[in-house]
């Protein structure tokens, strides 16, 4: 019996502990972080098994829900939390490659980023969600500028400005809801959302949607994405794509399905998602810089997830969740590989990376990750896109499906170009062998992608509960 609160309390404990350990041994802190994320991933795995039986409610402070805070973990939240922590564990190994001082602070910020993202997924209280959003975003701001160069500062500054606007919107939405319903518990809100004034309801929904849209990289609010990803240290770019983004989009799902069970407003979500897909994929096609290309591709993928949520049928939402999982794994892998390629080629330009991935330790995982992101069948990324498309088809969104497919083709084209260049023969002397801190996380992620691609049954078993999630359950 695992209490979900441990997933939040233990990382906090380790984060507060690390400055003390850091006085004696800086290396010790790094291994402590790896241990903490591994422990968290294990606990999240056990929690997932528990949540599959029935949703877990963890009352905090001993006060019944609307009075106090409650964590609400259904099967879907549990699997997203599990994936977040698993990826966080893989990235924490790659963190060993970061050398720049102050390394203890870096480790703490990273651990708190993981904690905040996990908390956003687990919580069942609207204001608590906002608190964890703040934790996540402030940790992200610090990490985005960690390189302390011009690119890093620029990206972090954009992120800070847009992120604060987003947080303000979330807070406004919460204030509107509280002013009408006098409660902050999500299920309590859901039970009484009908008594709200319709105008206030729509304003609250729009505010929350836009606010969480910043983390979820939704179209008009994602101008920070390429700069922040580009300027951040390589492990952090990987973490950005997998942790806060997934937590943000899960919060969106909570807003849409758990709290406001809107059905007539979902076209808005679909349109926003589609715009995001288009913006991301088309700009990604024109990029020459590897990390920027991956960042724009990440925007595109997040748009697909938002679209899946907006289509709103069981199949499409299932696809959106599968896509979240696949994208978290695949994009983390690609960013880690990108970090290695940039290090090996001493340049961020794709054209300078000729043949850099010819070592099988880097090449095979890279290939698997890219194919998965493109949505090729035997890998994890396929099911997400496929289910979203099928869901859209069954709802009759024909034009949208056509545009979606066109965007996917563009995606295939630019990834194919990238793959072709990195496997091309040329400057053999510069090809180097990655060290363990690079290839171990790559191989872990690649194995998971292949396993859940070839044998998707466990994931699909969990995703069966999408029906209850859409109906407003945990």
């Amino acid at each position, binding site marked *: 019996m695992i209490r979900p609160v441990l997933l939040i309390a233990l990382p906090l404990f380790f984060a507060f502990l690390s400055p003390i350990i850091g006085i004696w041994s800086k290396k010790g802190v790094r291994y402590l972080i790896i241990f903490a994320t591994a422990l968290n991933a294990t606990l999240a795995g056990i929690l997932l098994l528990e949540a599959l039986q029935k949703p877990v409610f963890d009352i905090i402070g001993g006060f019944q829900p609307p009075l106090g805070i409650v964590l609400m973990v259904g099967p879907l939240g549990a699997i997203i939390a599990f994936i977040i922590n698993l990826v966080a564990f893989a990235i924490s190994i790659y963190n060993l490659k970061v050398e720049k001082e102050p390394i203890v602070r870096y480790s703490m910020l990273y651990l708190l980023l993981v904690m905040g993202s996990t908390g956003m997924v687990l919580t069942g209280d609207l204001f608590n969600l906002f608190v964890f959003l703040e934790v996540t975003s402030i940790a992200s701001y610090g990490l985005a500028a960690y390189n302390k160069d011009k690119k890093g500062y620029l990206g972090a500054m954009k992120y800070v400005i847009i992120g604060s606007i987003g947080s303000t919107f979330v807070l406004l939405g919460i204030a509107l809801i509280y002013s009408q319903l006098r409660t902050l518990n999500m299920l309590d809100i859901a039970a009484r959302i009908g008594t709200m004034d319709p105008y206030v309801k729509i304003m609250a929904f729009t505010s929350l949607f836009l606010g969480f849209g910043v983390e979820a990289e939704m179209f008009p609010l994602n101008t920070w994405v390429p700069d922040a990803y580009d300027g951040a240290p390589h492990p952090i770019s990987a973490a950005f794509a997998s942790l806060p983004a997934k937590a943000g989009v899960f919060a969106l799902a909570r807003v849409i399905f758990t709290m406001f069970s809107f059905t007539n407003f979902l076209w808005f979500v679909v349109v926003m998602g589609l715009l995001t897909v288009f913006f991301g994929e088309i700009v990604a096609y024109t990029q020459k810089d590897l990390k920027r290309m991956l960042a724009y591709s990440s925007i595109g993928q997040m748009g697909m997830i938002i679209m899946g949520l907006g289509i709103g049928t069981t199949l499409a939402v299932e696809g959106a969740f599968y896509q979240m999982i696949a994208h978290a794994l695949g994009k983390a892998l690609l960013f880690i590989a990108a970090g290695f390629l940039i290090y090996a080629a001493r340049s961020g330009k794709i054209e300078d990376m000729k043949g850099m991935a010819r070592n099988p330790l880097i090449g095979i995982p890279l290939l698997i990750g890219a194919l998965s992101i493109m949505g*090729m069948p035997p890998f994890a990324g396929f099911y997400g896109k496929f289910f979203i498309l099928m869901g859209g088809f069954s709802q009759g969104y024909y034009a949208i499906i056509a545009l979606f497919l066109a965007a996917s083709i563009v995606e295939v084209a630019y990834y194919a170009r990238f*793959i072709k260049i990195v496997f091309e023969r040329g400057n053999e002397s510069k090809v180097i062998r990655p060290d363990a801190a690079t290839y171990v996380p790559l191989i872990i992620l690649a194995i998971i992608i292949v396993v859940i691609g070839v044998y998707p049954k466990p994931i699909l078993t969990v995703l069966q509960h999408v029906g209850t999630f859409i109906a407003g359950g945990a």
Partner: protein
Amino acid sequence: MVTDWLIHAGLVALYLFLAMVIGLLFMGIARKITARIQNRVGPPIYQNFLDLGKLLAKKTNIKHNWIFDFAPLFGLGGVLLILAYLPMGGYIMLSGQGDLILLLYILAIPALGFALGSGASGNPNAGVGVMRALTLMLSYEMPFLIVILSLMIFYNTASLSVLLQKQMNYLWGIAALPISALAADIALQGMMAEKPFDIPIAPHEIASGPLVEFGGKYLGLLMLYSAGSIVVETSLFVDLFLGGGIVLNPTVYGTLAYFVNYLVWLALIFVVWMIAIFVNAVFPRFRIEQAFKFYWKWPTVIAIAGLVQAYVMSVFLGVVP
């Protein structure tokens, strides 16, 4: 149970083998016909089988690295996967919900394998060829996608087997949606990389492009790959627009129906292939930008017209097959 599985596996092997044989035969026929048009005698039809045997028996000395070794297998595996999803004369090995969308995805796999392997060889001609192939893919996928979408809207299904069923019961796609069929055929020409779209291979300019570094067993595998691709591409058109060659209902006529359907399907893909070959023999080659512009202009417009037709028919006129 076990015997069922064995029979199924045997049938799969048989169908895949037949597909390869058909592909090689078609290639031979194409060579002969092109030669005839150009007033040559040309090699015998079975020449390709001899070539293949020779290539596979050869020892290979060209060593690049693991990507190079892996790529032909990747391409061939992709082709076999597509073949497994395509109905050949009404028999489908693997099928499921929404395999029309699935097809769109896996159609890209062989091209990727190609891109990988030839990139890995480091030959500049191969690199040029691959970039052309990828651009060409980007161009013909656009109209093709709209065509598939019109079919999906008109027949209101995303499953190939249901599509075949409905075509058999109602009307062949080419009769119901002639505009889309035209767009699909133009896209098909690019997909098969026949003239005027044989830009990626372009034997005279870039020495067969992606193939240039491959020899021996690798070339043999790639030959099988292109044989399989021919069957895939022609059969795709037949399945989408010519009812998959199903004339007899298998539930009524049993095994006989499968046999007859297979023969009809064979005849139909031969016709489609012949059209492609004649176009190939007559037209000169486009440049890649021309091809790209062409595809995003004419076939796309035609395909959109087809889409409008399908939409109007199914939504406004209420034609439900």
